[in-house]
């Protein structure tokens, strides 16, 4: 499903180049549940952004279901992304001006889903994440963990084929974390959703079928 070929990324800092990722080759098949681990600053988020098509590498190729992503026009790329990928941010990134309900509903709007269907889907997700009571609150009225739940809900509601999650349980208590991992596992097993998560927790990583370790922008074997 995903094939990264010789991906590198650096920032030029004056004359010096700061390498974030070096010569990364990864292949991930449909239906896999992959965890990415590594110390802080090792480039995990950057790698996930690349796979999510919201960042560009300095060098290398990326094939998504056989399509060469970086040669696509922006419009086609965002279509591809919209159709297949759900992204969970490390920093939640909710829209401040919208309520919980509206934040979760937003992707459905862009997927042109009818209003009756939207209602049903959002209600279902709110229920599943046990945040029905919070649906009319604004993000600033939520705790970090609650915001993270909303962020995850927003990513899964469009039923993407691939979920990219950047430390999805970082701000959750262990019980909530387990629930999210169970949810991911269920999506993975029952619906065949491919999941790639970044995590610092060995325990969470163990939910996955495979772990990729990053160290200084390189894959550590």
């Amino acid at each position: 499903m995903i094939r990264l070929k010789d991906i590198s990324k650096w920032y030029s800092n004056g004359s010096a180049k700061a390498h974030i990722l070096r010569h990364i080759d990864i292949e991930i098949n449909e239906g896999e549940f992959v965890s990415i681990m590594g110390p802080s600053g090792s480039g995990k988020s950057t790698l996930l952004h690349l796979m999510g098509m919201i960042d560009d590498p300095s060098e290398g190729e990326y094939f998504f279901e056989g399509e060469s992503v970086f040669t696509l026009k922006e419009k086609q790329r965002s279509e591809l992304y919209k159709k297949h990928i759900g992204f969970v941010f490390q920093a939640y990134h909710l829209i401040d001006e919208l309520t919980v309900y509206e934040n979760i509903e937003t992707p459905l709007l862009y997927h042109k889903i009818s209003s009756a269907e939207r209602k049903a889907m959002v209600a279902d997700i709110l229920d599943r994440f046990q945040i029905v009571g919070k649906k009319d609150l604004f993000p600033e009225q939520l705790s970090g963990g609650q915001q993270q739940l909303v962020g995850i809900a927003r990513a899964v509601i469009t039923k993407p084929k691939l979920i990219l999650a950047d430390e999805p349980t970082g701000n959750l208590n262990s019980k909530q974390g387990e629930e999210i991992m169970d949810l991911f596992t269920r999506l993975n097993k029952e619906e065949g959703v491919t999941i790639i998560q970044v995590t610092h927790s060995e325990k969470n990583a163990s939910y996955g079928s495979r772990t990729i370790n990053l160290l200084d922008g390189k894959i550590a074997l």
Partner: protein
Amino acid sequence: MLKNYFKTAWRNLLNNKLFSFINIMGLALGMTCSLLIMLWVKDELAMDKFHANDSRLYRVMENQFFSGAISTFPSTPGIFAENVVKDIPEIQMASQFLWEEEPLFTVNDTFDKEKGRYVQKDFLKMFSFKLTKGDVATALARPDAVVLSKKLADKYFKGQDPMGKMIRIDNRENVIVTGVLDEIPKSSSLKFDFLMSFDLWAKQNTWAKDWGNNGPRCYVMLAPNTSLEKVNAKLKGYIKSKNKGSNVEVFLQNYGESYLYSNWEDGKPNGGRIEYVRIFSVVAIVILLIACINFMNLATARSLKRSREIGVRKVVGASKRQLIGQFIGESLLVSFMAMGAALLIVLFILPSFNALTDKQLALNFGDASFWSTIILLTLLTGIISGSYPALFMSSLKPIVVLKGALKINPSAAFFRKALVVFQFSLSIILILGMIVVYRQIDFIHNKNLGFAREDLLFIPLEGELAKNFPTFKQELLKQPGIKNVTSASSSPLEVGSSTQGVTWPGKDTTKLILFSSNPISYDYINTMGIQLVNGRDFSNGYGTDTLNYLVNEAAARKIGYKDPVGKELTMWGDKGTIIGVMKDFHHNSLHVPIEPLILRLVKKDWGYGSFVIIRSEAGKTKQALASMEKMVKQFNPGFPFRYNFTDQEISKTYKTEFTVNKLSRYFAFLAIFISCLGLFGLVTFTAEQRTKEIGVRKVLGASVPGILAMLSKDFLRLVLIAIVIASPLAWWAMHKWLQDFAYRIDIGWSVFVIADFAAIAIAMLTVSFQAVKAARANPVKSLRTE
């Protein structure tokens, strides 16, 4: 989707009340100004266009050739119309049309002077002035016909049918009412309370029947599908064919256009009111643009704040198009709110605007075209102001904004600065324009006209007064408050008549030279307060003064005598002597240069002229008026007492300029206010952005003035650039405007100093208001909240 956008937009407005207020208020003010000007322009453009035969109606214009120059007037010989319809078949109808006259109407015990026009029989068939009584085809057929306005019909024939009733005119003729006019449309520049037969007037004014004399206007109606060029070609030599040696040529100007295109130079149309229509249209666009720029500026500046939302929307699937749609939609929301506010403001200030512009403009809420214009204007404003922010924001890369690494994009910052410069340039041009207009008007107002315009009154010399003027003068001088009394053919405002009939020994007879002439009676120089540079005034003491002349300096130069006093001059065949030279004074408006002028005493058989001119004792105006009224009532019992103050009448001749003066002041104020509103928003935003930096700097020891300077410097630089750009443009525009005045101010450097200083001061005041607040904020507080 729309609901989602609307909610975000609405909550954004609510969460940022200051910015929302600035945006909506700025746009609303800009729209108010555009709406007012649009109403005015629409009204101006519609003037005189309501006549059914509009495309076939023409005004006859006359080019007069004198010493190399062409002067163009709408005047013709009084027998032009009756002849031209016979001689040129393409001209279907024609009617002479006299200047406004004010004859005395008497019906039994009711009498008053009424304003109206003398026209010919086809006039009502050519123009679409409707009658409520009578028939347009026949109403003016008989030479003793009169058509009254409803007002006059009610005044003289209350409760009766006026048709067929008799009115005595000037205690001389009887006329019969043959029609009653319907209300004259507001969009008619011709206004009159009565129409009477031109022939009636011509009977008393036989000079008008001569091909060599020009005066009355003439309107013609062409046959359908006639080529104007062909008719003009036929008209070119027409007067010459009737009057050998004539130096005038006539041509036609479309009547509907004559209101806006009334100025002529070298025989070609050279603007007129159309210039104000153009100038104000540009002003409307400029002010709206300034307001739109505020919106663009604040929106792009604030895009930093909203960038996360944009990033998220992109990541959850929004396409660039959808985001553009969202932001344009937001600005449309704002522009519709602003339009609502603008319509309210317009409703509120329309009465004062009408008073200022002497119009009866109204918002026509029942009119579909009104609403479509409003909606179009709103959409246009929304799209213009939303376009740049929308394009800018929708092209932000999600990763950049989500990682919070979005710095002030240099190209966006440049664009924003360019917009501020543009905005301030426009404002400075308007301020400069305002100052120049103000100074020119002030100059006109206070210019030494060469005679004393204060305490100078004039009344028409009519009825019995015209016969008994010397006795009247004697008696009036005995009354309190009266200092001098004289009479003249022309009022102190304007010497209308001119002549080529002046000769002197050694004159180059190949040249046609035009002299203004004003036959007067004794004491004219004293009464007017004119200075003599040489010689003496006319005086009773010399019996022969009826053949003597006073000339002004301009005339003396034209004649070419080195020492004119005592030299020979012949006017209209009367050989006489120049007895004095007057210092040049303005006997016409300041729009035209001082022309050569010859004064001579009226001859016995001419009467004593048309006006009594009276100088009251300084500060005794009330007494003088009472004296005048008493004497006029006594000498002229059949006439109402009417009087004019010269200085007030002079002011009235500059009405358009006064209106422009006031309007330009309002518009300049509005422009700078809107610009400052935007600047205020930007500074607030910058200060907000740099709160943390300011806090850190203060902790490190920066002083309040230092931080103030840091925050203000950038904006000051922008205003300075605007000054550099605006100054030459403003100079050029105002230089052009001033060309309309023969006597005008110099646009000195002081104008620029004032305008530039004002712009800087206002901008700095605006900036420092916020900057001081930011600089004085407690650093600990600002750092803690970060």
